[in-house]
């Protein structure tokens, strides 16, 4: 699938609820085919931003564009939206519910049914197809809702905290699906407070803290730019006296490895040359990339006390 032009564009968007500013002066552009991560602690304005993209909330200032125009009905129907708060018809049967959502998004009844059945099988829910949704666990309900998000094969997936509430196995399945959909040319925007997930999946990230955008960049680019120059080395046998080497300002033991922080001007290649001439047997030599979490903290500071803590892994 080929897409032209920016898929989502926010410019100078602001949203307040009474005295509380939820989103302030927010710019965002999502190019077709990207996997975009909207990152930030709980309460930082991710969901409000997404709800404005979907036309559920109207911004108090600035402009929201979907596929180059106002997020009207026709454009919204090209989006697959998974809201943060799970909305399901609890008393409907799983398959009936999926067919209904497919239908109102313009998929013919029969096709919606066969697609739904395929997805249910893929997500291990086939035997629940004729059960009422309320009989399912929260995690299963979430998978059902994810299916209803993708059933009409939308160009853009907007997923608000898609991984929360899923066990690690299902998180993996969902990650796999996200990557697959991306490979099929879909644009994907998802919000998360799980930095590890974002690190694995995203091509581009946008960090939000306290209603404002802090960073917005290509993830690889960001990491390269934020690289501190630290290296990890691991030796077989006795380690050379790395602390005395020029350019090494600090040494830290991390398990079997040593993490070397390099001083100003020192380059990793020089250290590698030193290792080679030291005549020890080297098991690992690696440029340490900064973790997204560190980058975030560096730019936004530690989350304020009343914010929920930023998590670096695991399910919440």
């Amino acid at each position: 699938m080929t897409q032209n032009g920016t898929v989502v564009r926010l410019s100078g968007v602001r949203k307040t609820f009474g005295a509380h500013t939820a989103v302030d002066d927010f710019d965002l552009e999502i190019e077709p085919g990207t996997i975009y991560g909207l990152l930030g602690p709980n309460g930082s304005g991710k969901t409000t931003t997404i709800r404005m993209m979907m036309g559920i909330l109207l911004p108090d200032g600035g402009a929201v564009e979907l596929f180059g125009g106002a997020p009207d009905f026709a454009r919204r129907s090209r989006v697959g939206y998974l809201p943060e708060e799970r909305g399901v018809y609890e008393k409907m049967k799983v398959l009936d519910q999926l067919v209904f959502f497919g239908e109102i998004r313009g998929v013919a009844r029969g096709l919606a049914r066969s697609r739904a059945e395929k997805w249910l099988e893929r997500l291990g829910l086939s035997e629940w197809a004729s059960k009422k949704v309320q009989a399912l666990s929260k995690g299963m309900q979430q998978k059902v809702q994810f299916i209803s998000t993708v059933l009409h094969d939308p160009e853009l997936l907007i997923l608000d905290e898609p991984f929360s509430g899923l066990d690690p196995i299902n998180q993996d399945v969902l990650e796999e699906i996200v990557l697959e959909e991306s490979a099929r040319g879909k644009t994907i925007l998802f919000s998360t407070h799980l930095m590890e997930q974002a690190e694995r999946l995203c091509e581009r990230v946008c960090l939000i803290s306290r209603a404002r955008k802090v960073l917005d960049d290509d993830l690889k680019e960001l990491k390269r730019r934020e690289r501190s120059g630290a290296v990890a080395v691991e030796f077989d046998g006795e380690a050379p006296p790395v602390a005395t080497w020029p350019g090494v300002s600090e040494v830290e033991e991390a398990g079997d490895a040593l993490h070397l922080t390099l001083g100003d001007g020192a380059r990793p290649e020089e250290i590698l040359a030193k290792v080679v001439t030291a005549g020890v047997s080297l098991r690992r030599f690696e440029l340490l990339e900064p973790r997204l979490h560190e980058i975030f903290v560096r730019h936004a500071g530690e989350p304020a006390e009343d914010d929920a803590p930023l998590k670096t892994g695991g399910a919440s």
Partner: protein
Amino acid sequence: MKQIWSVIRREYVERVKTRAFILSTLGMPLLMIGIMAIVGFVAVLSEQSERQIVLVDQSGQLGERVRQALEQAGYEVELAAAGVDMENLDQQVLDEELEAYIVLDDTTASEAVFAYRGKEPPGSVRSQLMRAAVVEEIVDLRLGQMEDGDSVRRLFEGGALEYEPVGLDEEEAEEAEAERITGMITGIAGGLILYIMMLAYGAQTLQSVLEEKQSRVVELVISSLRPWQLMLGKIVGVGAVGLTQVAIWIACVALLAGLALPSLIAAASDFEELAQFRQYLPGPGAILLLVVFFLLGYFLYSSLFAAVGAMCRNLQEAGQTQAPLIILIIVPFMLQMMTFQGNSMPWMNWVALFPFFSPIMMYPRAVMGDVPTWMVAASIVLMALTVWGAAWVAGRIYKVGILSQGNRPSPRELIRWIREA
């Protein structure tokens, strides 16, 4: 358009499948059939309980008359001579060969007091029947002995008011009377159906809207459907459920009239009078008018109920907010109950023109022929205009309300919603 169909179908199918719908739909006819069956069963039982009774006549003049009266009331009577051995009869009662026997004496002839001798007192039905038979015969006998007995007898019968329609011959008058009764039955039943439908199914629309808002499903649905489409689909779906229910009820009545009744009459000629009720069934015109009033009334109220559902956050809030609508439905119903008897207050016809009252008040008037045709037509036009206006306002409230998770709007905010939506 296709999407609206999906919404209608979902709303309809999910509702018709619920236990509540099945119970309320089948419950009503079953209840009616049950009551009729019990009445019939009791009648049959009392026939079967026809027992032998021995009648001892010591007065010498009542015996034969009372025997006939009791036999007509369904007893098998053995008339014993005055000199019969009462101890022997008592013994038979004690041996349970005889349930009881009746003794008529001179006091009976003068005061209609008589003895019932048995091991157990008579049941209330039996004592009523027997007393009535005896008293009637004695009164009859005594009146027959009087000079102007016939006149007194007629006084006892309670006299009569004879309606003499001016300007109609007898046949026309009978027809008019039958029509009046038909209109009355149709009007009462139709008014009741409209009342129940607007109240019950209007409230269901509210519930349906509120559920979607509370669970936030609406945010998903609304990304594929325009708000008015969703609202329309909901109202039509819920209304179709209501129509289904009424249709099932009407079918039950028709089935009863067409099948059950003739066989019932064939089985027991006592039910013959029931056959008359068939002639009072409403014609197609009255049913068509009912559908028109149902559609207008239901759309009017359910769109407003939908707006209330969209305004509120939970059922408690909705309970308070819907109060004005409930009052608008209950008031005409009470007014209607007051005026069903005759057309004593012609100004009420003008009240019935008020569109919010029309379904419940104008429909019965129309089928009873209490109002001129132009008034019925005017009320339909007025209602249609009101439905249009209400749908416009409700649609705008709905559009803003379903996505708003904040407090219930104040009247001023509500006006802003309507203006800005």
